[in-house]
């Protein structure tokens, strides 16, 4: 175990970001780690989508992400956790989410990233609009985002 308190970096960004600019310093800050797992999601080039806009309700979003980080620290043996999500207007190909976990052992790092990605949508709410042929349209909810979450409901 690391003697210092675990490092937690949770951010909502309203401007484009370069994941490497976050992950490099994050890795450097966790001296003595065994491994770092990182997931970066990008806005997909879906047929005809010119832009994507994410709206959030700040009083719920950041506390939701912090609560998720607390769960992850409780469940996995982590040295550090980075969780960054874009809001605002994005173009296809831009990073939209970056989750990085540093741990002594690779299983904790990989599983923590998997867990956070599966739960981020339910922990932090985002409303999504897509622009196609110059027109903005809200993306409707899906009934079935449950199978990913169900993977984590077994007793530990």
């Amino acid at each position: 175990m690391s003697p210092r308190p675990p490092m937690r970096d949770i951010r909502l960004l309203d401007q484009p970001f370069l994941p490497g600019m976050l992950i490099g310093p994050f890795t450097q800050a966790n001296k003595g780690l065994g491994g770092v797992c990182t997931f970066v999601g990008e806005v997909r080039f879906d047929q005809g989508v010119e832009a994507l806009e994410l709206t959030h309700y700040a009083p719920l979003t950041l506390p939701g992400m912090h609560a998720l980080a607390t769960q992850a620290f409780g469940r996995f043996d982590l040295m550090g956790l980075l969780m960054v999500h874009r809001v605002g207007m994005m173009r296809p190909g831009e990073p939209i989410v970056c989750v990085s976990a540093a741990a002594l052992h690779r299983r904790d790092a990989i599983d923590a990233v998997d867990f956070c990605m599966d739960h981020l949508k339910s922990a932090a709410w985002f409303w999504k609009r897509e622009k196609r042929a110059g027109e903005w349209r809200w993306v409707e909810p899906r009934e079935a985002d449950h199978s990913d979450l169900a993977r984590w409901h077994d007793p530990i």
Partner: protein
Amino acid sequence: MITVVLLGKLADVAGAPSLSLQGPLDWAGLKAALPDTLAEALGDPRNRVALNGALIADTAALQAAAGDEIALLPPVSGG
């Protein structure tokens, strides 16, 4: 005044991201004070309501006074 924050498509229905209403308001009072199309859109049972940043379990329990912020949260977008 009570601030009513409108998220997602509810902002489009209202034509604005937030409204200011006279308080105090309970759920029935809020719906009555909102434009018809918005009050109608609130009929969707998947909507959630937050008072001062905290989700409330039951809209019947809503009691907002001057200075409070009510957020009306439609279901979030899919994957």
